[in-house]
């Protein structure tokens, strides 16, 4: 075989494996959408419009704006972006409160004994059950919704941070103490990095919770947001609009998780590496 032919052959096999990996990754999803399309058309039920119709409607709902706004329609600015801001804002508060508080509790046996029963009790309260109280205290604007998202999604971050900082390898701590690394540096340079894998796991779970809480918070006494639009569309019997909202939520959750995973891979590259080595 000539080198030319070998090169071509190699290119072919590479292209083939790329197609194969794409098919394995997304094949099932695409197949499901196709089945859904045909089933919905055949059934002709107004409750279950085919995906092509939903897509068409979604485009006119959100992508019919003027070119200088990247074709984004008013609805994107009135509903979609506020929802995403509430979601990210609430989650950011959860991160900013959960990690420092978790470190404090994780590093102090006394504080942990003191607050643990109360924390377990608070955690058991389903976030949405607090909406009425939050409405009385904080009104019905974004503050209330952001607070609810923060309250409901702080727990995985807090508890994982406590767990992560508590279970730092004693050999690492002993080593640091023997080398007279001061206490504050031990926290920054050893305890925190050691707890990072657990903290990130908590942040990811809480991101998914934040999406749920964002929708729930928008179902009550609201005038904007994706959750509000879904409920409103259902009341007005605009079932395709309702489906658009549902699909958009799924898409937001999916993309956020994907972005977070990318971020996590970058920050915790050492962890993947170290774990991969010990496993073999």
């Amino acid at each position: 075989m000539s080198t030319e032919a070998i090169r071509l052959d190699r290119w072919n096999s590479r292209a083939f494996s790329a197609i194969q990996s794409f098919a394995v990754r997304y094949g099932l999803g695409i197949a499901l959408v196709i089945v859904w399309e045909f089933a919905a058309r055949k059934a002709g039920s107004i409750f279950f419009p085919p995906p092509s119709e939903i897509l068409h409607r979604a485009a006119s709902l959100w992508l019919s704006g003027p070119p200088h706004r990247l074709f984004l329609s008013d609805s994107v600015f009135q509903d979609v972006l506020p929802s995403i801001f509430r979601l990210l804002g609430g989650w950011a508060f959860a991160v900013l409160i959960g990690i420092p508080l978790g470190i404090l509790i994780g590093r102090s046996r006394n504080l942990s004994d003191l607050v643990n029963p109360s924390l377990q009790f608070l955690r058991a309260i389903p976030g949405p059950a607090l909406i009425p109280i939050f409405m009385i205290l904080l009104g019905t604007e974004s503050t209330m919704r952001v607070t609810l998202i923060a309250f409901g999604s702080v727990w995985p971050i807090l508890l994982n941070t406590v767990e992560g900082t508590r279970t730092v390898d004693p050999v690492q701590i002993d080593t640091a103490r023997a080398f007279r690394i001061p206490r504050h540096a031990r926290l920054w340079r050893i305890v925190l990095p050691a707890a990072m894998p657990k903290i990130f796991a908590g942040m990811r779970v809480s991101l998914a919770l934040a999406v749920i809480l964002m929708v729930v918070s928008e179902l009550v006494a609201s005038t904007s947001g994706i959750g509000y639009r879904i409920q409103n569309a259902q009341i007005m019997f605009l079932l395709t609009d309702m489906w658009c909202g549902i699909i958009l939520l799924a898409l937001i959750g999916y993309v956020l998780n994907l972005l977070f995973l990318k971020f996590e891979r970058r920050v915790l590259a050492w962890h993947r590496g170290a774990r991969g080595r010990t496993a073999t």
Partner: protein
Amino acid sequence: MLTVEHLHHAYIREQVVTADVTFDVRAGEIVSIVGPSGCGKTTLLKALAGLLKPTGGIIRFQGKVVQGVPDGLAIVFQEYGRSLLPWTTVNGNIELPLRYQSISTDECRRRVAESLQAVDLSGSGERYPWQLSGGMQQRVAIARALAYQPKLLLMDEPFASVDAQTRADLEDLVAAVRDRFGITMVLVTHDIDESVYLSDRVIVLSRPPSTVLAQVSIELPRPRDQIKTKAMQQFVEKRSEIAQMIRRPVDGEPHP
């Protein structure tokens, strides 16, 4: 340099690990501590390092009573994989303890390079510990200790987790480092061969509640050689002398 007087330690009441241990270490010496398993070797080492407060007795390091970790002391643990930080590079690991000493950045960099060179890992500074073999990781741990420029280096079973060939290489490395830098070393080991091969003196502990059974001086010529030294009459005699003490501990053995 280091004196230990009537050291006593019990983790829980009535479970005495160390009953009464007394010995001293002179500057520049390599001293090994051997004994049957469970005799409190690691407990003793942690007490020397100031990581553990013993329930009785006094430890003095450079004339001062040890309360908390004293200055001028470095430690190498058996579990290199757990004592090195996986999220930072080899350089980062060696450098970390130096940052909190009053050392200039240049001096710090110089020490990192020099200590890596001493353990023959000059090219590996930018790699992560988990990218290295077990023996190399333990060499990083030794380099970290060297860069710290301790007066006293404590080692807890430092070569117990590596294969036999690596172990021999690391033993020779430690001996060479001692000759070059003149660091006093206290080494805890369960390997009698290793203790005789490396040390100027071997301290033999009894079963718990442990006391010092004997202090055996090793006057083998230096530099020592894995094959030649271990074939010497004196090496063989000392080894069996210590082995017998550890294997058949007689109850009520008199103190030395």
